[in-house]
């Protein structure tokens, strides 16, 4: 085995490490972002995730995957955005117990399928359902961090405006006029003067939002399984090549809790 190969393998080995919680930000009533300082931070790619492992005093372990929300360009730390699930044994701990200064066992970055980097080009079409927007936000933050003007469009389905994650930052990114636009659809509660979409994403909505943008876009869909599969199917029916579509499914017990 030559040296180059050995080095590559070392880089691929995943080690559990102890991260320190540097900051906690409340995004919505049920969503928090955790900034983690890592002793051995490896550069991540937008769309990847970290595994978090909790160990109880009796040795019982629970492990979940959480998408990285921060741009790869963010130095020193990573940000993971976590939705609190009522029956989630990991997310409830992260929301209700964890405070700044606590330590967490993590490993990553993980994944190479649901990944976008500016050099892959665009246009970039992103579809997010609920907290499925998290890895898509990493892509948009990466796009902004490298100053890319690749046309990008985010179709974001949320139950209500109060449940939109990163709303102010998305507004600022749009206002920067770099070729990003964000289209919302609210499936449960909408603002009083709302004239935009107020239903689940369907084929007609995709036809209106995606077709003028371009069917050749690189597409990333992340959200609950049923949303991901119905959006991907509709896009293929509209004429998008299946190999331009990448998907990531969050269960309703989202990242499984």
């Amino acid at each position, binding site marked *: 085995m030559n040296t180059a190969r050995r080095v590559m393998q070392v880089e*691929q080995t*995943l080690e559990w490490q102890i991260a320190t919680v540097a900051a906690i930000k409340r995004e919505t009533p049920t969503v928090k972002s955790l900034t983690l300082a890592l002793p051995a931070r490896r550069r991540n790619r937008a769309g990847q995730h970290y595994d978090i492992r909790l160990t109880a005093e009796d040795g019982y372990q629970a492990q979940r995957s959480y998408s990285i929300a921060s741009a790869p360009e963010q130095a020193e730390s990573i940000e993971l955005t976590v939705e609190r699930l009522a029956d989630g044994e990991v997310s409830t701990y992260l929301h209700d117990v964890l405070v700044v200064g606590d330590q967490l066992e993590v490993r990553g970055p993980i994944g190479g399928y649901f990944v976008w980097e500016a050099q892959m080009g665009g246009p970039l079409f992103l579809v997010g359902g609920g907290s499925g927007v998290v890895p898509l936000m990493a892509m948009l933050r990466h796009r902004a961090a490298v100053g890319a003007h690749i046309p990008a469009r985010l179709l974001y389905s949320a139950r209500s405006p109060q449940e939109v994650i990163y709303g102010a930052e998305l507004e600022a990114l749009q206002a920067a006029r770099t070729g990003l636009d964000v289209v919302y659809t609210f499936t449960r509660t909408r603002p009083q003067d709302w004239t935009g979409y107020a239903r689940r994403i369907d084929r007609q909505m995709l036809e209106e939002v995606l077709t003028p943008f371009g069917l050749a876009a690189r597409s990333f869909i992340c959200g609950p399984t049923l949303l991901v*599969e119905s959006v991907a199917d509709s896009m293929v029916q509209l004429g998008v090549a299946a190999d331009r579509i990448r998907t990531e499914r969050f269960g309703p017990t989202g990242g499984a809790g």
Partner: protein
Amino acid sequence: MIGEGQADVSRTLVLDGNAVGGLLQDIFEADMTASPTMCAHCGREGHIGNLLAFTHAPGVVLRCPGCEQVVLRIVVTPDATYLDARGAVFLRLKR
């Protein structure tokens, strides 16, 4: 999309191969989510990241998103990892 009548699994509980990326990387020492594979039951080609993943069990089961048959099963015990890959025509490890 979902095979009518043959769906014996609840899609609402499903994650996908992306969520199992860490476990696969433990075994293969490489990212496998972007690796292509082929279902031995229906011949569908796709990426491991897009397989359906069932993780609410002692082991992990990855199924074909087309025919829902089992492609990979992984069980980790205290002293060994078992990988049943008979549902995959091939796995591809990048050199």
